[in-house]
């Protein structure tokens, strides 16, 4: 195990956890508008997949958009400012919680229309291939999204053109309140890979290292011209679909408790300590550093101005046309 990579993985997982905890706190205090779809429990899947990428690789995410850019290495200021609807947000206050995409780290959007990101990631891979680069495209999507037609169309296109893309399913067992066991007609979504003649892998999403290893091999395969893969991480969200949706009764308390015992951050920390890869002091220091980053991001956001209402009219077009003769 490479010490520095592992410390970075740990740092990013903690960063996601703490960033979202801070956001929930700000929401409770009324400093945040809009819904929040949080990720606790899924950090291992997200970070394991992201760190298997190179910095210049592409990534496409989902409505549950906080973890992916952080996993890919985005700095927190622009993300927090976006959540707080400030003009300094990554999207200048136009996107909000479902769209924390930081293009500077290769993120090509976090789209809130479920399933709509799969063709985009496919297209980024096509672009990478056509431009003769060896970039790879990573596509996050949920178990719910796997039932959308775009899943099928994208995997088929990627397979026939041997595109460098890794489809990564965060199977957290539910689409809002709807269990995958009732809406996905196959036990393992990864099994569908066979229908596209591409490799499919099921991984333990609570084990960041397993995720990393498997995604890394899929990324390497893609990078060297071997074409796409489908990876399914079995994972779980510890909190509700969105903050505040506490009245739903679609899953048993015991199930949640069971999964909470497999917290990917705790598991990874224990393992790093057990195997003596990183010292307790270094891990604590990393957590402290993340805490400071979060504090800094909140300060940055708080002291940033609101967008000017007139900015609502910016960024509709890239090329403004002169009409009138």
């Amino acid at each position, binding site marked *: 195990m490479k010490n520095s990579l592992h410390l970075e993985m740990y740092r990013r997982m903690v960063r996601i956890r703490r960033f979202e905890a801070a956001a929930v706190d700000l929401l409770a205090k009324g400093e945040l508008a809009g819904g929040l779809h949080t990720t606790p429990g899924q950090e291992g899947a997200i970070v394991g997949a992201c760190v298997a990428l190179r910095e210049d690789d592409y990534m496409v995410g989902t409505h549950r958009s906080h973890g992916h850019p952080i996993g890919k290495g985005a700095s927190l200021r622009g993300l927090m400012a976006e959540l707080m609807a400030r003009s300094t947000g990554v999207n200048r206050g136009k996107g909000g919680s479902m769209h924390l995409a930081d293009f500077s780290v290769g993120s090509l959007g976090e789209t809130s229309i479920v*399933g709509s990101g799969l063709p985009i990631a496919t297209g980024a891979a096509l672009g990478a291939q056509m431009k003769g680069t060896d970039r790879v495209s990573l596509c996050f999507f949920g178990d719910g999204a796997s039932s959308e037609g775009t899943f099928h169309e994208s995997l088929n296109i990627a397979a026939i053109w041997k595109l460098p893309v890794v489809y990564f399913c965060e199977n957290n067992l539910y689409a*809002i309140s709807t269990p995958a066991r009732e809406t996905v007609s196959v036990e393992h979504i990864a099994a569908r890979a066979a229908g596209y003649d591409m490799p499919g892998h099921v991984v333990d999403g609570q084990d960041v290292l397993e995720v990393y290893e498997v995604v890394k091999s899929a990324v390497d395969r893609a990078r060297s011209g071997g074409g796409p893969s489908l990876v399914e991480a079995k994972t779980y969200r510890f909190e509700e679909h969105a903050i505040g949706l506490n009245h739903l009764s679609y899953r048993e308390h015991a199930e949640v408790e069971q999964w909470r015992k497999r917290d990917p951050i705790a598991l990874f920390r224990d393992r790093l300590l057990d195997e003596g890869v990183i010292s307790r002091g270094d891990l604590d220091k990393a957590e402290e550093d993340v805490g400071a980053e979060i504090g800094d991001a909140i300060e940055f956001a708080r002291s940033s101005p609101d967008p000017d209402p007139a*900015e609502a009219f910016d960024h509709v077009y890239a090329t403004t046309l002169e009409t009138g003769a």
Partner: protein
Amino acid sequence: MSMQPRSKPGPEVAKLNFLAALRDAMAEEMRRDADVFVMGEDLRQNLYGSSAGLLDEFGPVRVRDVPLAEAGVIGTAIGAAMVGMRPVVDITISPFLYPACDQIISIAAKSRYIYGGQTSVPIVLRASLFYNAGSAAQHSDRPYQFFLGVPGLKIVVPSDAASAKGLLKTAIRDDDPVLFFEDFNLWSTSVRCDHDDEADRTVPLGRAAVKREGADVTVVAVAASVGLSMKAAEKLGQEGISVEVIDPQTIQPLDEETIFRSVRKTGRIVAVDPAHRTGSFAGEVLARVTETAFASLKAAPRRVCTPDTHIPFAPVMEKGLYPSVESIVDAIRETVA
């Protein structure tokens, strides 16, 4: 996504909010006709607030949670309708209609025609207009005007809880595909409702409601803009400007006669519509009025719409974009200036 406020179930409620009124409409029609059933995402958990108690009363066969697959789900509803069922699909937020546009336009709207009357497609697609909710550009659409150019569809956009209930009941009984758009900004509005009396109150499709009579200006408003227009009318009434407010209720087919009659009386028209200005239903109203009642017009017609930009997340940018009592008042004033 915020999905508040939610409704309480049950026939004991004497005042129903918008979503509970729709719930009752569905429940009553399901009781009346065994072919009626509902399908949608997270219905059983009543996530969006209009399906409380349905699962308990009607069971999982008639209250079906669906996978995320809008084209497949709507197409499945169409197929079921062709063999005698009457599905009501809750598509939840209106942009989720887009992945199913082909099924809606090429199949639902056209099948009866293409097959020379051999079949019909009695489905209702419910979709909420989730604007003014801090949900950013992908969730805030108001796309009823999209489907105006598609013959064969009926499009209903109610303006309050009471008419919404009666319109939904009629839509369910109608033999054609009906798109039913529900304005999120009305969810907290409510209607007094005595269940025994009201259970069979339907509101006909294709008929406008004159919400307020007036002599000086005709306002045609849609969805939550009707309420705003009523307030604007009230305000101007105090200044001696008499405003007639018309709620088309069904925008396709449109009860244009009621609108023309009013404009022939007032000589002035303002159309209010929370959709983007270009390509809006409000534009269609202006076109029809000016084609047909030009001679009666005393002033330039006006549209009050959302400007042609996307909906931003930040509340400071979003909040000024939609029609408001003030902007409606201003537009009416311009017509009488």
